[in-house]
C-alpha cells in the first residue's frame, strides 16, 4: 500500500477569519465600532447594555453630539432581549442561532446588511450566553469585553481561560449582592493577571449605579479612540 503523509498547515477557522476581516473592513469604512459583549447566561448583559446606552444618550461628545448605538442580539431562541432594545428606540437585529452556541463572522455580516450603518457610531453585539464558544470565533469586533456576575464566582478564569485572554476588560456585575456570596475581587484579579496582565476589571452594579461612571469613562475612551 502506498501510504503518505500530506502537509496541510491550514487554520481550522480560515473561513471565519476571512469573514471577520470583511466585517472589520466594512465597519472601518463606515466608521462604526463593533463592540462584542460576551458572558455566561444571566450575567446581566441586556440590563448593562440598556444602562450604558441610556448613559451615553445624556453624555455629549466634544462635538456636542451623542454616540449613536445599534444592537445585534444573539440568542439560541426567543426575541425577548431584542424587544427590550426596540423599546429603547435603538436599531436592533435579532439573530437566532437555532441551537448554535455562538455567533460567527458570517452571521454578523448578515446582520450588518440590515443595519443603518451610516447612522451609527457603535454597534453592540450581545453574544450568546456562553463562556466557551464565543471566545473561539472572531466576529470582527473592534472592542471585546466580558461580563462576570458575582454569583458565578471568582474562579471562572481558571475554568475558561481563553475567554479571559480575548477580552480587554471584565465588567463584574451585580456588585450589590456581593455580601451574599464568597466572591473575592482580589482572587479574580490574581487569576486573570496570570493570563492577561493588561486586563481591566470594573466592578459595577447597574442597580445602584456604583462603578458605572468609571466603566463609562473607560468605554468612552475605547470607543472614541477607535472611531
Amino acid at each position: 500500500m502506498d501510504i503518505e503523509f500530506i502537509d496541510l498547515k491550514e487554520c481550522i477557522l480560515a473561513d471565519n477569519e476571512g469573514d471577520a476581516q470583511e466585517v472589520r473592513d466594512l465597519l472601518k469604512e463606515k466608521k462604526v465600532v463593533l463592540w462584542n459583549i460576551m458572558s455566561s447566561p444571566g450575567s446581566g448583559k441586556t440590563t448593562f447594555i440598556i444602562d450604558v446606552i441610556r448613559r451615553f444618550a445624556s453624555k455629549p461628545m466634544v462635538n456636542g453630539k451623542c454616540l449613536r448605538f445599534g444592537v445585534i442580539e444573539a440568542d439560541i431562541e426567543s426575541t425577548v432581549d431584542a424587544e427590550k432594545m426596540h423599546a429603547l428606540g435603538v436599531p436592533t437585529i435579532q439573530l437566532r442561532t437555532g441551537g448554535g452556541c455562538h455567533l460567527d463572522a458570517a452571521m454578523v455580516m448578515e446582520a450588518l446588511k440590515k443595519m443603518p450603518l451610516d447612522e451609527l457610531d457603535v454597534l453592540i453585539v450581545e453574544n450568546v450566553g456562553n463562556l466557551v464558544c464565543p471566545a473561539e470565533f472572531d466576529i470582527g469586533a473592534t472592542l471585546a469585553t466580558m461580563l462576570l456576575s458575582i454569583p458565578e464566582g471568582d474562579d471562572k478564569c481558571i475554568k475558561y481561560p481563553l475567554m479571559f485572554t480575548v477580552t480587554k476588560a471584565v465588567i463584574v456585575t451585580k456588585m450589590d449582592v456581593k455580601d451574599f456570596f464568597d466572591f473575592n475581587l482580589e482572587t479574580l484579579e490574581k487569576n486573570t493577571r496570570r493570563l492577561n496582565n493588561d486586563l481591566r476589571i470594573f466592578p459595577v452594579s447597574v442597580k445602584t449605579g456604583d462603578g458605572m461612571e468609571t466603566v463609562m469613562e473607560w468605554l468612552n475612551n475605547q470607543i472614541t479612540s477607535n472611531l
Partner: protein
Amino acid sequence: MHELPFTKGIYRSVMKKAEGVNAKDINRVVLEIGVLHDFIPEFVQKYWDFISKGSIAEGSKIEIRWKNAQVQCGSCMTIYEVGKEEMNDPKCPNCQYEFGTMLSGNELRIVGIEIVKNKPAESPQGE
C-alpha cells in the same frame, strides 16, 4: 458542542486536500491545538466519525497535538512556555513572578493527513 463546527471545518479542508492528491483512503488527521482551547478529543472524534461516514475518511483517526502557550512574564519579560497542566498556575521560571501576558496558545491548525494513495492507472501494453 463547540467541537462540531470546528470538525465540520476540518472535514471540508481535509476532503478538499485528499481529492487534490488522489487519495483512496484517509487513515489519520493530525491537528495542532493551542492549550487555551477547551477541546475534548473524544468529542472531536465522535463528530468526525459521524460527519465522515460513507466517505474515504470513514474510520480515520483524529490525532490532537496540544501546543503549549507562550507567556511573557510581567516582571522580567522572559518568554516561557506553559502546558495544559500548568495553565492554572503559570510562573516565570526565571523570576517566579506569576503574572504575565499570553502571546500564543490559541492555535487551531490542521497539520496534515495520512492517506492511502490510488495507484495511477497503468497504460495498456503493446500499443
